[in-house]
């Protein structure tokens, strides 16, 4: 059976002996199959163009002057002068960028540290009330910003954490801990207990075991959970909108709103600001998308 199947697949790439490459049942031997193939490729290509064109328009318009944009929206820029980027950077984008970086990195470290420790306790330690605690933490997945906007605002004011970077770090960490723990826990469950026991028998303390054995073993899930988290923190909007008033503390997603109303019709600089805000995540995810998607799919599919 397999021989029959593989002989009909002469077009499969030899260096790709995976299942994927051999999927194509009903190879284009007939005319109708060829028509189908062309139609599918047209659809896939059209989708790609439809997805990319607005982004391309955003980047190319950043290099045009606002007059050029209004005169001919389709035309390519006449020069590649970075003037608009410099203006955007100076008129606030830099400050928002710094705030976004500080909050994202600060809360990333915290959410991974607390999340890994919590997942370790849930899966590998002799935790009392493990089931109710697990349910409580995973139940946090259902809580959304809309449900708690008012009391969190109140609480941050009362704690003098409103309009502070620390307040943002704490709120982001708390909000994403349930999902982070959910992802790490699903992975940690699959690690054999014997590895940890062996390390303890060798005389390592619990902290040493955690640091030298558990963390390295969990590297794949820490990377994907970290990526999921960074994407969240960089783009988060409702909490930042409510908890940050001081323009010098605003992150990109909320700062860009001020930026937009300050610039009015200076589209060129606006487009440049949008491009600068989007760039870090685009670069990060083009580089690491595979890890990210697999990690997320594994977390959801199990």
């Amino acid at each position: 059976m397999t021989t029959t199947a593989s002989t009909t697949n002469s077009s499969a790439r030899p260096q790709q002996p995976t299942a994927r490459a051999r999927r194509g049942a009903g190879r284009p031997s007939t005319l109708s199959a060829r028509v189908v193939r062309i139609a599918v490729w047209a659809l896939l290509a059209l989708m790609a163009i439809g997805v990319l064109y607005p982004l391309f328009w955003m980047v190319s318009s950043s290099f045009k002057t606002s007059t050029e944009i209004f005169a001919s929206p389709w035309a390519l820029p006449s020069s590649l002068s970075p003037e608009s980027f410099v203006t955007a950077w100076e008129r606030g984008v830099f400050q928002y960028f710094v705030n976004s970086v500080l909050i994202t990195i600060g809360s990333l470290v915290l959410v991974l540290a607390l999340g890994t420790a919590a997942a370790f306790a849930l899966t590998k330690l002799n935790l009392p009330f493990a089931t109710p605690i697990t349910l409580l933490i995973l139940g946090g997945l259902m809580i959304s910003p809309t449900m708690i906007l008012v009391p969190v605002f109140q609480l941050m004011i009362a704690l003098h954490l409103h309009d502070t970077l620390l307040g943002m770090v704490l709120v982001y960490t708390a909000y994403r801990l349930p999902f982070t723990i959910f992802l790490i826990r699903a992975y940690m469950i699959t690690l054999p207990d014997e590895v940890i026991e062996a390390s303890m028998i060798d005389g390592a303390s619990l902290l040493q075991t955690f640091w030298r054995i558990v963390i390295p073993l969990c590297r794949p899930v820490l990377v994907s959970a970290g990526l999921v988290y960074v994407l969240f923190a960089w783009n988060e909007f409702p909490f930042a909108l409510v908890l940050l008033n001081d323009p010098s503390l605003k992150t990109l997603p909320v700062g860009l709103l001020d930026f937009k109303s300050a610039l009015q019709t200076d589209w060129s600089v606006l487009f440049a600001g949008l491009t600068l805000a989007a760039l870090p995540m685009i670069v990060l995810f083009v580089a690491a998308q595979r890890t990210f998607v697999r990690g997320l799919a594994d977390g959801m599919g199990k």
Partner: protein
Amino acid sequence: MTTTSRRRALLWIAPALLLVLALMYVPLLQNIRLSFYNWSIFDQEMNFVGLKNYRQALADPFLGTALRNNIAYALVSVVVQVGFGLVLASLLDRFATGRLQGFLRSVYFLPATISMTVTGVLFTFVYDPNAGILNAALEAIGLDSLTRAWLAEPSTAMGSIIAMSQWQWTGYITALLLVAIQRIPTEMYEAASLDGAGPVHQFFAITVPLTREMVAILSLVTVSNALLLFNEVIVMTNGGPNNSTQVLGTIVYQNAFVNDRMGYAATMSTLVLALTMGLGIAQLLWTRRKRVSL
């Protein structure tokens, strides 16, 4: 298991647990309490008003608009992102291989990495009646009659926002569905193909049933996200024109931080909580029923 004491185990989880309790669960309960009071940011004195906020909320004309908009967003998103996404993922799996598949997947996925403020502002330009590329494109293909101020007309504003979200999120869901499709053993398709089943038949007989679990999860995620709809609306229309794009999130936000009706906003939040819990219970029942597959 290991030799640790139970108390030490608690220490490992305490920081995470305390943070989640203090900043998520306490506010959640506090919000329910707040929904029975009226007060303002400037006048912190709280007046107990009982169920008055709830009676008002249920009679609030914006609540109906918001629910309609959130539901429309949810329905379109499930059909386009999950439904069409599954078709797209199967086409990618079947027709594109190796690097080309990875490339297309990355391209489709790209908008999902961008802040909704950025895509929102970008699409207010795309939809702009004067210099936007949507109208320009329609004129270019002779459909001048369709051009309009997309975000300024109550009849098209919400649809335009929903359309942008499909552009942004379809590739993300597709990438996750592709992972699920690629877990299906190839032999199943080979066997079906030997039995004479065509690609469309194979899609419905193999792909759909065997990705059912992921499809269910992603549908639920998509519907939950529809209830959270907020960022795009604030950026693109701020609830307008003529309140036609109000959603649950904007009602909560505007009542609290624009109209300074904190208690009323908390009431709306509690309604969102109730809706979400309803969805959660529906999901629990659903997963229990279908656990048999695979």
